[in-house]
C-alpha cells in the first residue's frame, strides 16, 4: 500500500516530465510506424507480384528483426549520431517485418476465385488491388501494424539510451538508482500505452467493409498527428546541450543538485554512459556527466569542471574487508594499506586509459604500476588462505583487484582467488556480507548513498568533506556489517561535469559556476 501511495506521489511530482516522456514515446512510435507503413506496405504488395523478390525481402527484414535492439542502436550511432534519428531508424527497421509479411500474406490469402473474378469482370490490376485485395487483406495487414506498434512501444524505451527521450528515461534511471517507483513510473505508462494503442488499432481492424474506406483514410491522418507529438515537448533551450545518464538525471547529487545549488539551466538529453563520451567528442553534446577518473577523459581530450559548491559527494576508493578475515590473517591489513594514498586522480585516469583504450591487460598494467613504485615483489606461492578478492564489472575495479592480488601474493604466504565481474554494487556488497568474498574496493559515496541510504540532510552535511564521509561509512560498516574500511587509495572517482578542453578554454569555463554564469549571460 505504501508502495502504491509513494508511486502515485512520485508520478504526481513528476507529472510534467511524465507527460513529456509519454508524448515523446508516442511520437517516436508513430513516426517510425508511419515510415514503416509507407515503405512496408508497397514492399509487401510488390512481393506478392514478384515471388522471387519475396524470399529476399522477407529474409532481409527477418534478419534485421533478429538483431538485438541495443546492438542495432550501436550500429546506427556511427551512421546517424545520437538523438531521434537513430532511434526512429531502429524502430522503423523493427516495424518493417510484420508490416511487409502481413501485407503479402493478407493479399496472398485472398480467395483466388475472387481475384480471378475481379480481373474477369474487367478490373485493371490497380483497381483489383485497391477495391478487392487491400480491402479483403485489411484485417491481416492491420494485425501486422498492431504487432509493429506494440514492438515499437517496447523497443522505444531504449531510445533513452541515445538521447531520444521517451519513457525509457524513467525506466533506466530507476534501474540505475535502484528506485522502484521511478521504474514503474516509466514502465506502467509504457505498458498501458502498448495496450491502449493495440486496443484502438483492433477497433479499426474489426471495422466492417463499410467502415474500412473511412479507416483507410483516417489511419494515415492519425499516424501523422501522433507522430507530431514528438516535436511538441522540445522547448526553447540554451545554446549548449548537456547529455546526462539516466542515473545522474534522478540523483540529488546530480541534475537536481545542479539546478538547485548552481541554478544551472541547460537543455538536457538523457543518454547512455556507453555512447556519451563519443557524442561529446563529436560535438553532438557540449556537457556530460561522468566519473572523474574515467579513462575516456584522456581518450577524448575532455576536462572536468571544478565542483566549486561541492554538491558531488566524494567517492574515495578504499578496500572493504571482512573483520573475521583480518583477524584470521593479521598480515593482510598492512599489505593492503601499502597502496594507501598511492593513486591520485590523474594516475587512475591514466591506468584506466591504458586498459580501456590501449587494451592493455589489467595484470600487466598493475605490475608495471607496482614496479614503477618499487613495490613489486614476485609471488611467494605460499599455502595459506585463500583470500577471495571481488570486483565490480568495470575496468578500474579490475585494475585495483589485480594490484591487490599481486601485493598479497608477493608480501604474504596467502593464496588469492579473484572473483572479478560481480556486476554492480548490490551484488558485490551482498557477496561480501554473506562471506562469498573476503574483500573488494568500494567508494565512499556509493556506500553512503547506495548501501547505507543516508538521509538527505546528512548527505548535505557531510558533502564536500572526504574525511567526514569516510569516517561515517567506516563507522557504520563496522557496527552494522562487521566490515572494515582500510585506508583510502587516494583518488576520488566522484561525479563530474565534463566539457571538451577546447570549448571550455574558448568559453573560459573552469568551474560549474562559470558554466552556470555563462548560460545565464547566454539567455
Amino acid at each position, binding site marked *: 500500500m505504501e508502495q502504491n501511495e509513494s508511486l502515485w506521489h512520485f508520478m504526481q511530482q513528476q507529472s510534467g516530465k511524465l507527460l513529456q516522456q509519454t508524448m515523446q514515446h508516442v511520437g517516436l512510435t508513430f513516426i517510425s510506424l508511419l515510415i514503416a507503413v509507407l515503405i512496408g506496405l508497397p514492399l509487401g504488395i510488390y512481393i506478392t507480384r514478384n515471388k522471387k523478390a519475396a524470399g529476399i525481402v522477407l529474409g532481409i527484414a527477418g534478419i534485421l528483426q533478429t538483431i538485438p535492439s541495443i546492438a542495432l542502436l550501436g550500429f546506427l550511432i556511427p551512421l546517424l549520431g545520437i538523438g531521434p534519428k537513430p532511434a526512429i531508424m531502429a524502430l522503423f527497421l523493427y516495424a518493417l517485418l510484420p508490416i511487409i509479411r502481413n501485407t503479402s500474406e493478407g493479399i496472398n490469402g485472398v480467395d483466388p*476465385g475472387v481475384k480471378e*473474378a475481379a*480481373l474477369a*469482370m474487367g478490373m485493371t490490376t490497380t*483497381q483489383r488491388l485497391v477495391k478487392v485485395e487491400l480491402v479483403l487483406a485489411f484485417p491481416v495487414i492491420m494485425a501486422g501494424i498492431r504487432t509493429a506498434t506494440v514492438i515499437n512501444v517496447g523497443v522505444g524505451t531504449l531510445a533513452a539510451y541515445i538521447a531520444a527521450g521517451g519513457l525509457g528515461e524513467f525506466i533506466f534511471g530507476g534501474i540505475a538508482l535502484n528506485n522502484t517507483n521511478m521504474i514503474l513510473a516509466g514502465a506502467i505508462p509504457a505498458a498501458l500505452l502498448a495496450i491502449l494503442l493495440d486496443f484502438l488499432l483492433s477497433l479499426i481492424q474489426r471495422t466492417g467493409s463499410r467502415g474500412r474506406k473511412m479507416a483507410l483514410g483516417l489511419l494515415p491522418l492519425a499516424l501523422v498527428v501522433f507522430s507530431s507529438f514528438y516535436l511538441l515537448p522540445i522547448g526553447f533551450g540554451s545554446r549548449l546541450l548537456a547529455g546526462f545518464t539516466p542515473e545522474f538525471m534522478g540523483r540529488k547529487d546530480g541534475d537536481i543538485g545542479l539546478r538547485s545549488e548552481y541554478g544551472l539551466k541547460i537543455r538536457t538529453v538523457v543518454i547512455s554512459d556507453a555512447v556519451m563520451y563519443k557524442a561529446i567528442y563529436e560535438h553532438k553534446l557540449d556537457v556530460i556527466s561522468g566519473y572523474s577518473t574515467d579513462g575516456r577523459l584522456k581518450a577524448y581530450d575532455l576536462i572536468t569542471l571544478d565542483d566549486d559548491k561541492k554538491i558531488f559527494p566524494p567517492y574515495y576508493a578504499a578496500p572493504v574487508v571482512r573483520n573475521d578475515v583480518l583477524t584470521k590473517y593479521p598480515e593482510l591489513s598492512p599489505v593492503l594499506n601499502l597502496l594507501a594514498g598511492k593513486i591520485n586522480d590523474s594516475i587512475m585516469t591514466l591506468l584506466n586509459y591504458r586498459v580501456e583504450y590501449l587494451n592493455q591487460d589489467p595484470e600487466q598494467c598493475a605490475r608495471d604500476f607496482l614496479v614503477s613504485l618499487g613495490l613489486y615483489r614476485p609471488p611467494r606461492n605460499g599455502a595459506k588462505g585463500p583470500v577471495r578478492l571481488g570486483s565490480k564489472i568495470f575496468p578500474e575495479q579490475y585494475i585495483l583487484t589485480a594490484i591487490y592480488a599481486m601485493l598479497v601474493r608477493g608480501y604474504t604466504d596467502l593464496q588469492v582467488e579473484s572473483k572479478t565481474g560481480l556486476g554492480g554494487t548490490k551484488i558485490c556488497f551482498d557477496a561480501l556480507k554473506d562471506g562469498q568474498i573476503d574483500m573488494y574496493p568500494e567508494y565512499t559515496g556509493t556506500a553512503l548513498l547506495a548501501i547505507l541510504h543516508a538521509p538527505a540532510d546528512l548527505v548535505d552535511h557531510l558533502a564536500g568533506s572526504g574525511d567526514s564521509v569516510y569516517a561515517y561509512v567506516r563507522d557504520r560498516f563496522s557496527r552494522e556489517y562487521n566490515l572494515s574500511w582500510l585506508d583510502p587509495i587516494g583518488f576520488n572517482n566522484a561525479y563530474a561535469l565534463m566539457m571538451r578542453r577546447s570549448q571550455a578554454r574558448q568559453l573560459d569555463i573552469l568551474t560549474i559556476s562559470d558554466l552556470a554564469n555563462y548560460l545565464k549571460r547566454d539567455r
Partner: protein
Amino acid sequence: MITVTNITKRFGRHTAVDNISFTINEGETVVFLGASGCGKTTMLKMINRLLEPDSGEIRIDGTPITQRRPEDLRRGIGYVLQNYGLFPHYTIEENIGIVPQLLGWKKDVLSKRVTALMEKLQLPPEQYRSAYPAALSGGQQQRVGIARALAADPPVLLMDEPFGALDPITRSSVRKDFRELDELRAKTIILVTHDVQEAFELADRIFLLDKGRIIQEGTPDDLLFRPAGDYVRLFLQEQRFQLEAMRLKAGDYPALNRAFDNFKNRQS
C-alpha cells in the same frame, strides 16, 4: 463471331491446348466437353485473355482480341466461375453491378438493371439487394454470379463449369431457370463442363476435347449417333440410354424400342 486459329498453350512441358482451331457463330451455344485436364478451361480463359496463348490467334467479330486492352475486352464478355467468385465485401446489388459500374453507368440506370436481373433470376430484390454473399445458399450465389455476368448485357458469355459446385437438385433447378432466361436469346455462349447430360441439355454444338485437341465437333445428335471414333463412344457410354431418350420426340415408340434394345444388349 469468334474465330480461333491454331491456338497452342503450354504450362512448362505440359501442352494444355494443342493447335486448336474453330469458329463459333453469333447467338450459338457451344459446350466444351471433356474430362479434367483436357484443356477445356484453358481454352475458355484464353478467349477473355485471363490466359495468353503461346501461339495462334483469336478474333471476335473480325478483330484480334490482342488489339484491345484486356480490361476493355473483359468488360464486354460475361464470365461465370465454378465457385462463383463473388466479392465477399460487396452487397448482392454491388456484386451484380460491378461491370456496369466499371463502365460508368448512371446510378439509377444501374439500379433498375440490377432489380430486373434479380427478379429474372428468382432473387427477391427487397430481400437480397443489401445482403452479403455469405448469407446466400450456393444456388443463390450462382444466380448472383450469372446476373453479374449478364449485367452489362455483353454479346458473349463465358461459363466455366457454372453448375459444377451445386448439388444435383439445386443444379437442375438453376440450370432450368438459366435455360429459360430471355436474356440469353441473342448471346454467344461458351460453356465448359465435364457433365455429359448438361452438355446435351444446353448445347447447340458440342466440342469434345481430349489432351488439348478437339476429338469431335458437332451437334448432340452427331456425337450420339455419328460418333467420330471409340473415344467419343466410350465417353458417352454411361449415359447413352438417357441421352437417346432425351433426343427422341414424344410418341416415337419404334425409336424408343430400338434404344431400349441397344441398352439391354449392352447390359448383357
